[in-house]
């Protein structure tokens, strides 16, 4: 770390701290002395626990990012907003139909979307949130599923939405509808499940389990590796 000792000022909850310029927002807060409980999770950009809104001094713009993936900048104002859940409907996925009206029935507020694009600007994954909301209003479940696939459900879209849409909850409904009903069924999977449940492989497994290590090694070495 020696050659990276350059310190820059950041403001955490209003207080100034001088922190190494190479740190992420999360590590900078820890460096400043915070033991994080909220606003921290996987630390690898997947769980959405550490979404962050920040400003830079003299710059009126709001910026968005994940605290675990965003490097600090000089004069950054940080105030972690803990995750709060957006409106979410309960449903029985086995009783739904994969049609446009399902989206509208479960989330009637969907049709209130103004198309302003504030959600897209807020997304730390750089998803086209406005675009998938438009697809949802058209009832194109497959498009919503694909366009929203990289969503980490951090909630920044919903937190910023002037129409109070729960975008990320609408998106997961669409993905589950797509995965269960619209994606092509896997026939070979069903076939294998049937075989297993019919006891087709039981004897083979009983025999394998009874082998000693030497016999297992022989079989292991003899495996043909699929190209």
């Amino acid at each position, binding site marked *: 770390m020696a*050659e990276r000792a350059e310190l820059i000022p950041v403001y955490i909850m209003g207080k100034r701290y001088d922190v190494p310029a190479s740190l992420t927002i999360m590590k900078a807060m820890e*460096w*400043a002395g915070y033991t994080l409980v909220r606003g921290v999770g996987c630390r690898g950009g997947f769980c959405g626990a550490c979404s962050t809104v920040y400003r830079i001094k003299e710059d009126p713009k709001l910026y968005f990012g994940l605290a675990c993936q965003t490097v600090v900048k000089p004069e950054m104002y940080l105030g972690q907003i803990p995750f709060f859940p957006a409106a979410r409907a309960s449903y029985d996925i086995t009783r739904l139909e994969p049609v446009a009206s399902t989206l509208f029935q479960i989330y009637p507020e969907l049709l209130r979307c103004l198309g302003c694009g504030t959600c897209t600007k807020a997304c730390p994954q750089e998803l086209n949130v406005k675009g998938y909301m438009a697809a949802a209003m058209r009832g194109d479940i497959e498009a919503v599923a694909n366009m929203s696939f*990289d969503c980490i459900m951090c909630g920044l879209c919903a937190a910023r939405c002037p129409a109070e849409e729960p975008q990320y909850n609408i998106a997961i409904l669409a*993905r589950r509808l797509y*995965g269960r009903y619209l994606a092509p069924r*896997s026939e*070979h*999977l069903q076939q294998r499940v049937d075989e297993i449940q019919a006891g087709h492989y039981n004897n083979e*497994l009983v025999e394998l389990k009874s082998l000693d290590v030497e016999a297992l090694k022989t079989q292991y070495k003899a495996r043909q590796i699929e190209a």
Partner: protein
Amino acid sequence: MTYTPEMLEMIKVVEASRQRRLKETFPAMSMEERERVLKGFHPDYIQEGMRPIRVGVCKGDRTPNELADVLEGRPLISPDFDLSQPEFETDVLVVGGGGAGASAALLAKENGAKVTIVTKLRFGDANTMMAQGGIQAADRPEDSPAIHYLDVIGGGHFTNVPDLVEALVMDAPIVIKWLEELGVMFDKTPDGLMMEEHGGGTSRKRMHSARDYSGAEIMRTLRDEVRNRPDIEVIEFCAAIELVLDDQGQVAGVVLLNMETNHYFYVKAKSVILSTGGSGRLHYQEFPTTNHYGATGDGIVMAYRVGAQLAFLDTMQYHPTGAAYPEQILGLLVTEKVRGLGAQPVNVKGEQFVYPLEPRDVESAAFIRECRERKLGVVTPTLQPCVWLDTPMIDLIQGPGTIEKALPAMVRQYKRFDIDMAKIPILVYPTLHYQNGGVQMDANCHTNVPGLFLAGEVAGGIHGRNRLMGNSLLDVCVFGRRAGLSAAEYQKTAKPGSPNLEHVSTWNREMDEAGLNGALQSPVLLPKYTRQS
């Protein structure tokens, strides 16, 4: 571009050999060669990193120093903590909100139990969420559960518990089907064929994926499904810190700590499923880790204190490809799928030095050897040793745009630091990834403590001394489901006695007798990352 000018020069060497390397693959090691590189270079064989545990039922067993420290910790509560007023009662208490806990809760609920999930941080913020590469299941005609069994047990150096491996491979296609019906978007061809790839140590292509958000896709779907069952209560930011037994020695619930108010409280339960995950955040031998913030081995500590047997806790998994540069992402996972799709590990001379898909422990040991013994690694400005992973090969082999489509999370991670991994190689080094061992259980997730069940990484024996890629997402679903079912069955006939904390007194006495007067209290719950002043 974040690479230094020196690195950019080195990249030219990697590029110069690329066309030739596209046509050749480094040969896989024989069993004897594997053995040699493991013994010489794998962290599990570094003797100073380990010591025998000095108290409890596995006294004398060797484990990493950092794990021994927490196993030998003092309980956070005293034996006279008041259990007379439980905050609430439930049939099945699931401790941990990852993939194993969510699967367990769903199955316990379906089998008629009252279910509560408690989790230290947020529901779903777990290692499951971070798994990128995929989930194994033998569901193609060319494959079978028996072949999967051989791959698992060979990868584990023939030490795995056979009944657990059988459960894993036989349930695998059933789990994939279950997930498909819950709406998980697996990668498929237009006619419904699962798109399956190799992982390290597999003899058939059976790695199912959901781009490189495989774990996230499974976790968010399971979490969504739990939330669709309003009668499964989920309590977040409350960590289990001590199990409670009754006068019959059966599990009678847990003591929880509210992480924000520091309030301790007792929850009475007829059965407890520990699905607390692993322990990468203990940073064995000071390795960086891919693990979630909460992975501090809490479940092992709690189970051990009530007399549960441990297994294979002298072996940890170091994932060969942790990000080594830039420093901000040090230790983060570069999924094995990158090698599965054709990227080769390459040394500073632009040469291959290891078969790209050896089992993880062997691959890691080979990386460490290349840097430490042969001195053919790259060294970053922060003195981190590493090797190249030649990612541009993927689009050359699989067609332009493959990386973007198949590895969006990886591409995004590097793009944040101005590195386009489709065009330029990345730097990697082994990172602490998985706890191969854990608490012992049978194939239906029973431990030797009545009423205590396990699911996921906290359990040991399934993977023996080394786990293959794609078998942990599988493990959390297979044994999560089994634990949920077993606990739901158990509680139907359970006859709870009177709860007490006698085991805490016994533990403290044993600690005193062993002369262990250290102040460390465990479970430790969170790593200490604030600056030491």
